[in-house]
């Protein structure tokens, strides 16, 4: 799932300055599941913005809406009538949804209210961990189902490095929490699978051209195209 975090309120409020009609648009798929940008959160942000604007003596009309998915034209059609009423849209979707909205309603001003941060999974309720880097060349078949691209701090293809101690990485999160060493996890699971010889495979440098380094990616499924 794509996860995102709401931008700081001051930054969002700053984006609305100079505008007198703003629509906060939520997206009820990924960002709703990570409790950042669904309809509920859009309603909360719109209420916050209205209160702040009223405090500041600004005469601004701020409402909210939500699409089932902002990243698909059909779902944007469903909210088009409302969107057309507003010259400025604050989108709470991931970067994909925001761009879809901006393209669909161009040249309308569509602004981001969230920072899209990762492809993650909910490890427990309200905690998300990064699990995939969308690198375009998956290696987890050889690494016991654990992705070294995003779960190793250095994205090493041949780990672990000297910074691995007692199963922990020498790098910590910005909150100073320990990070599990991905290669220690890989070793332990390969051992449990009886496939530890895979640790001896020398993997060549990764071909990053299949990732975003190769330019914008495009996927076409000819067999699925409408006839």
């Amino acid at each position: 799932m794509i996860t995102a975090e709401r931008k700081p309120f001051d930054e969002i409020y700053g984006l609305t300055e100079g505008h007198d009609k703003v629509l906060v648009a939520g997206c009820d798929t990924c960002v709703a599941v990570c409790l950042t940008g669904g309809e509920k959160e859009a309603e909360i942000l719109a209420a916050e913005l209205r209160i702040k604007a009223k405090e500041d003596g600004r005469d601004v009309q701020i409402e909210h809406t939500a699409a089932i998915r902002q990243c698909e034209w059909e779902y944007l059609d469903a909210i088009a009538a409302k969107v057309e009423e507003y010259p400025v849209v604050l989108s709470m979707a991931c970067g994909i949804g925001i761009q879809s909205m901006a393209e669909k309603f161009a040249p309308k001003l569509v602004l981001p209210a969230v920072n899209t941060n990762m492809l993650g999974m909910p490890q427990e309720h309200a905690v998300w961990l990064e699990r995939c880097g969308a690198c375009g060349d998956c290696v987890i078949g050889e690494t016991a189902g654990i992705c070294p691209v995003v779960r190793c701090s250095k994205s090493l293809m041949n780990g672990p490095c000297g910074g691995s101690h007692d199963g922990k990485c020498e790098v910590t999160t910005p909150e100073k929490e320990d990070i599990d060493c991905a290669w220690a996890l890989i070793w332990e699971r390969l051992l449990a699978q009886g496939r530890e010889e895979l640790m001896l495979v020398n993997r060549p440098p990764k071909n990053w051209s299949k990732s975003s380094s190769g330019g914008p990616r495009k996927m076409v499924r000819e067999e699925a195209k409408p006839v």
Partner: protein
Amino acid sequence: MADEPTAAAAAAAEADSKPATAALPANEGFEPEIIVFACHYCAYAAADLAGSMRLQYPSNIRMIKLPCTGKLEVIHLLKALEAGADGVYAAGCLEGECHYLKGNLWAKKRVGYVKKLLEEIGVDPGRVEMYNMSSAMGPQFAETAREFTARIRGLGPNPVRPREGFTAHEVVLKQMGDLAMPDDAGSDPTPGS
């Protein structure tokens, strides 16, 4: 439900209360509108008891009855303030005694989150609060009402108060729709029965 406070009772309440910000003027003459989201199983019954005991508490209190404070969402607290309430609080069961096990703990977290949101937008976070009480705590219900009213009187009117008079309660009730329970004090205490 609240009796009209006499001048003496109001003075006593003023003396008993501990305003959140002592430096603020008492804002004499300002009558705040306060929305209380009260749990059916505890605070709402405690309010009933306070009434039966003829305890006086400020008539500024406007109650909205919920089956559990766990039903309260962040947006309801924000909407109450936006609708012009000067203060809002949730009154749920004592911790560990929620009829639905953890509803009051969820409410506590949500109130805490709203405080954070209010700080972001420059509204005093003291305008929202979470209280806990049992259905037997009539005097505490009255005391909480006095204390919170004094706090809000100290903070002054809600900066976005859009109107004269007390109207936020109606607006919030309408917005909450079926989430709020009908005001039927004295009826069977089981929701839905």
